[in-house]
């Protein structure tokens, strides 16, 4: 008994070696982000004038510029609008497509499935010119839906691919049991099937969001004023007066936040998605 008490009191060294290495690694990764944050809280003079590890004249003026100037904050709104549009369209299209691929075999299904993926193999730059011309001629230029549609070219194949993997994991007998119980196809799909692949939907929404939020080239080519994205806005701050370092850094920090939030909310789904082997 005495030994037992002794053994519970005995402590291991208070930090594990692996934890130390991990912390150093994470700090290292965070350096650029810290530097961005650091710059966003400085004046342009301090950024350009001296080297300092933290802001000596702490200022929120840079953020104030973004929150008060419509050409800045509308960049965020525009981006969020077309990102959400894109996510909704991608899911709406990919869910039935993935269901068909996972449940039915039809002529050329495997080739079609692979062809979908090949759409992702071309860089967006290839499509910039045809999209610009096409959207201009049908009057879609500089609209949110234009960017959202352009991004579906890349997001739908990935979404189908991921969802098909999740759907394949659901036994077909569940579908049949539901029909036997009396569910029609659409009630079954909404009430029984969708909850079963909610992780997959989460993963897909995450990937659509990430691609669309980060993508610069198409969003810049397809918009000018009304639907100008935040990424495009940031690249257009190089003016005659030079680069406004502080404001640009503040914009950068604000651009990271939505992505970080999305990752935080879907992190468990992503882990599950990796475990299911299609992400």
């Amino acid at each position, binding site marked *: 008994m005495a030994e037992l008490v002794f053994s519970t009191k005995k402590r291991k060294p208070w930090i594990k070696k692996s934890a130390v290495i991990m912390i150093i690694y994470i700090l290292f990764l965070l350096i650029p982000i810290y530097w961005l944050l650091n710059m966003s809280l400085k004046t342009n003079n301090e950024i350009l004038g001296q080297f300092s590890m933290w802001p000596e004249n702490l200022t929120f003026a840079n953020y104030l510029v973004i929150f008060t100037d419509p050409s800045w904050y509308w960049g965020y709104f525009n981006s969020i609008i077309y990102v959400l549009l894109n996510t909704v369209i991608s899911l709406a299209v990919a869910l039935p497509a993935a269901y068909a691929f996972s449940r039915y075999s039809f002529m050329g299904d495997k080739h079609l499935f692979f062809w979908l993926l090949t759409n992702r193999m071309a860089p967006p730059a290839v499509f910039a010119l045809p999209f610009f011309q096409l959207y201009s001629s049908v009057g879609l230029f500089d609209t949110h839906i234009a960017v959202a549609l352009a991004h579906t070219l890349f997001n739908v194949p990935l979404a189908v691919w991921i969802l098909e993997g999740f759907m394949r994991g659901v*036994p077909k*007998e*569940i579908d*049949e*049991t*539901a*029909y*036997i*119980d*009396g*569910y*029609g196809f659409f009630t079954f799909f909404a009430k*029984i099937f969708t*909850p*079963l692949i909610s992780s997959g939907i989460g993963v897909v929404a995450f990937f659509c969001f990430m691609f669309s939020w980060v993508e610069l080239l198409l969003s810049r080519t397809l918009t000018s004023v009304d639907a100008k994205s935040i990424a495009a806005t940031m690249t257009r701050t190089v003016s005659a007066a030079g680069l406004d370092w502080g404001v640009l850094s503040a914009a950068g920090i604000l651009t990271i936040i939505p992505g970080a939030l999305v990752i935080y909310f879907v992190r468990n789904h992503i882990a599950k998605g990796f475990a299911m082997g299609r992400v």
Partner: protein
Amino acid sequence: MSLQLKDVTLTVNGRPHLFETSLELEKGTMNVLLGPTLAGKTTLMRLMAGLDVPTSGKVYWNGKDVTGMRVQDRHIAMVYQQFINYPTMSVYDNIASPLRLMKQSKSEIDKAVRSTAEIVKMSDMLDRKPLELSGGQQQRCALARALVKGSGLVLLDEPLANLDYKLREELRAEIPKMFEESGAIFVYATTEPEEALLLGGNTATLWEGRITQFNKAPEVYHRPNNMITARVFSDPPMNFLKLSKIGNQLFLDDGQAMLATGNLSKLKDGKYMAGFRPNHLELNAPNDTAMKFSALLNVTEYTGAETFLHMEHGGHNWVGLVEGTQKLDLNSILPVYLDAGHIYIFAEDGALVMPASYATAA
């Protein structure tokens, strides 16, 4: 109420899964589809359910043609070998879901769910999610969902195959009770002859996409109408040997000759196939008239109470099932005995000529 299949066939991608089959199941009967894997049990069941549409032929329910009708409108119930429940719903909601779709009132649903849960012994589990349950409980939940509908046709496709031995025995003993309370036509697919006999009712033996015999289970067991049925309805499969009768003498394929006794003496002269069940083979002569064979012993397997003997005799593989743990020399010639009363006589084309005399007495 009755279910009638009339000349149904199913061909998928040019491959026949089920050959022309007719079958009529009466109200309130337990019907076992017995056959090895790929015999067509599941195919037949899916046609009964309306999950698949027969390539040709008709399905009638209470005399009404239901071929090709949507499965939602068929009002049937089915339980699969895999434990299929709705994982995101609680057990209560799982059982209630078919009733909710029938637009029953809340109190009616509650009453039905609770009484059905009572029958399948799941009353304490109603709040749990299916994946938190053991395999046996998951299957009970699936059974409850099938029973609660009160449908006239309940299809059970090897419902116990994925359960361990103990749970299987337990649930199998309860199924006849569930069946009696439902008053429905039960169709139960299994690969085990033992289950067909234990569940009682009718048995249809299947082999390579055909029903070989359909009758009361003991009747099929005792009087299989051909060699295939006999092989299917025997575990381990029935043993066979060639035999010819000339006058009152039987000539066996190993060159032995013996006097035909009992029923065998009434056989017409000619060539036959003789069959007997593994458990009728004995290591010691049961009586003076017993037939004696010299078989090559290849493998013995002990299950504790019994010993399986895998032997070769006259080009046929034989299996013997004897009591106790038998220590025998492998790869040696073993004398084994068979009471002539346990021999089935089949014609050379496989049709039954004469059932074993013990079976006709039973």
